[in-house]
């Protein structure tokens, strides 16, 4: 047997590192003759830098991050591709107990409904303006993150201008619950277990979840240093197979407790096992012992959860444009589209008999129910994949989408 491929992957202590952790700990990488090392990092900037200098070949990455790297939006970016996603959903919006009380007075309910919570929040914002209180301050983990874009999308769709009516700051996930408790922020959007952390510590309430703002939406991807991918196609293919098998394992209900224990371990998230369970079971404790079941809160496998949809890349790109991070033109759009590489995913996983979607992009929000889709061989169902307020994103009509959002923001 040939020598194993050595791969070092950077990751952040978040629940959606699950696929990488399982690939290593459950032997899926090893059986692909991969010597996979996982290195925990303290910032996304470190992950980007260490990928650029070659310490890491691949990394657990915020789904918009490889696009931002390729668009030159960050320092020291190297050409990065996303040949695989690491699951769907997994984030939530947590607010302070104080803000929740104000929202409740305006009709917010503990059911995680984004529309009701958003309307209540809008009323709170209006009241604060009238009474001369300062802007609400929300935290997200990174400017180029699903968290930033989905928080802003939710606020804007509820007629709250994220820049005029609130302030959005950047904080590392493990510090969010403390910042909420100390009152330096009023709320945040982050991945698990850092929402559950605030609930368990009694410092906040979960107001809504990513899986309700945009069902079946992308969150993390496997970011791969492009040059390494080009020179090591076999190692990359082996890694994708290992991660896919890890996704199968993570999706099996029978493995939930073992997965929770793995993730809670000192080398990974290093927090209590109880904190891992809500995201894995979908039984979200929103505060005050109230549980709301969100079946597809975090989806590791079903609904083509590891498929790197071009329409996901392009939606993130439209949000970069929307919030002034980049100017829209055809070459930037092409860079975003080319960052996600379903071609590599297909070529690698077809041989395993994995159910593959028929197309590389879809109209986001088109599927209102779970829908069987034409795929090569095996069966596959997609959706529902809707935005909470009913909007559609058609990746073939980007100009119109961007123009409509630009109008909305200024109205």
């Amino acid at each position, binding site marked *: 047997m040939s020598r194993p491929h050595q791969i070092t992957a950077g990751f952040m202590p978040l629940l959606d590192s699950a696929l990488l952790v399982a690939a290593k700990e459950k032997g899926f990488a090893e059986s692909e003759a991969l010597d996979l090392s996982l290195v925990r990092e*303290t*910032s*996304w*900037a*470190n992950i980007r*830098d*260490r990928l*650029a*200098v*070659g*310490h890491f070949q691949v990394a657990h990455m915020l789904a918009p991050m490889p696009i931002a790297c390729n668009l030159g939006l*960050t*320092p*020291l970016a190297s050409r990065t591709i996303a040949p695989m996603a690491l699951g769907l959903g997994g984030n939530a919006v947590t607010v302070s107990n104080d803000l929740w009380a104000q929202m409740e007075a305006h009709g917010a309910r503990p059911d995680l409904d984004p529309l009701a919570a958003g309307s209540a929040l809008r009323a709170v914002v209006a009241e604060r303006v009238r009474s001369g209180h300062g802007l609400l301050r929300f935290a997200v*983990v*990174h*400017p180029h993150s699903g968290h930033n874009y989905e928080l802003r999308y939710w606020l804007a769709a509820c007629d709250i201008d994220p820049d005029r009516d609130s302030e959005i*700051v*950047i*904080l*590392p996930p*493990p*510090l969010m619950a403390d910042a909420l408790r100390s009152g330096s922020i009023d709320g945040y959007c982050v991945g698990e277990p850092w929402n559950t952390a605030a609930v368990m510590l009694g410092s906040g309430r979960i107001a809504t979840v990513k899986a309700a703002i945009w069902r079946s939406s992308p969150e993390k991807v496997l970011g791969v240093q492009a040059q390494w991918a080009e020179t090591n196609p076999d190692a990359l293919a082996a890694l994708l197979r290992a991660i896919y098998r890890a996704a199968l394992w993570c999706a099996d209900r029978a493995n939930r407790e073992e997965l929770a224990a793995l993730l809670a371990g000192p080398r990974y998230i290093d927090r209590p096992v109880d904190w891992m369970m809500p995201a894995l079971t979908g039984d979200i404790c929103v505060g005050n012992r109230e549980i709301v079941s969100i079946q597809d809160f975090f989806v590791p496998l079903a609904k083509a959860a590891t498929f790197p949809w071009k329409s996901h890349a392009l939606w993130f790109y439209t949000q970069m444009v929307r919030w002034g991070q980049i100017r829209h033109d055809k070459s930037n759009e092409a860079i975003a589209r080319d960052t996600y590489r379903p071609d590599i995913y297909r070529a690698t996983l077809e041989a395993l008999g994995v159910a593959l979607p028929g197309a590389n992009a879809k109209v986001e929000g088109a599927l209102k129910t779970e829908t069987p889709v034409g795929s090569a061989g095996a069966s596959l169902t997609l959706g529902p994949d809707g935005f909470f307020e009913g909007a559609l994103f058609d990746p073939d009509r980007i100009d119109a989408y961007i123009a409509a959002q630009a109008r909305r923001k200024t109205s």
Partner: protein
Amino acid sequence: MASRSLAILVIDENRIRASIIEAGLRETGHDKITVVHDITGIARTIAEVNPDVIVIDLENPNRDMLENMFQLSRAVKRPIAMFVDRSDRASIEAAVEAGVSAYVVDGLKQERVKPILDMAISRFNAFSRLARELEEVRSELENRKLIERAKGILMKSRGLSEEAAYALLRKTAMNQNRRIADIAQSLVTAAGLLGPGEDQ
């Protein structure tokens, strides 16, 4: 030298390392140095100091926040846009390797920045070396203390001489293929469990 001296901001939660870097910068003739250990209120500090170069350790979880601040550049008068010259791959690698990162005001000449980064890299490396050596000395000292206590237990409970007690520890370690300090640790723990007055 005609050119104005550079304002340098060092952000490092580790006070010792920060002061080692500060000393290094002062030795090389830089006098406009601000050292910050706590990220709280960093926007104001940056606005006041108006730094040309920011040096930050890679362990700091707030790098994402800092970078975002530079990009918004509301707090910062001039855009701070780059790490070091992108073409200088070797020094980028050396910096990441050493655990330090630097942000530099756009347009600043590389020959002015490079000595600062080089100095930071060598001081970071020196600090890691020191920390490692200190850790080795500390654990060596602790091992010796453990072995002393284990010897004492054996001398007392089995009436052995000091030399015989040590020989027994060494033989047991060799037989079990373990370190003497580990055997000593087990013995001390066991003695603590078995009876009061043995060791405490």
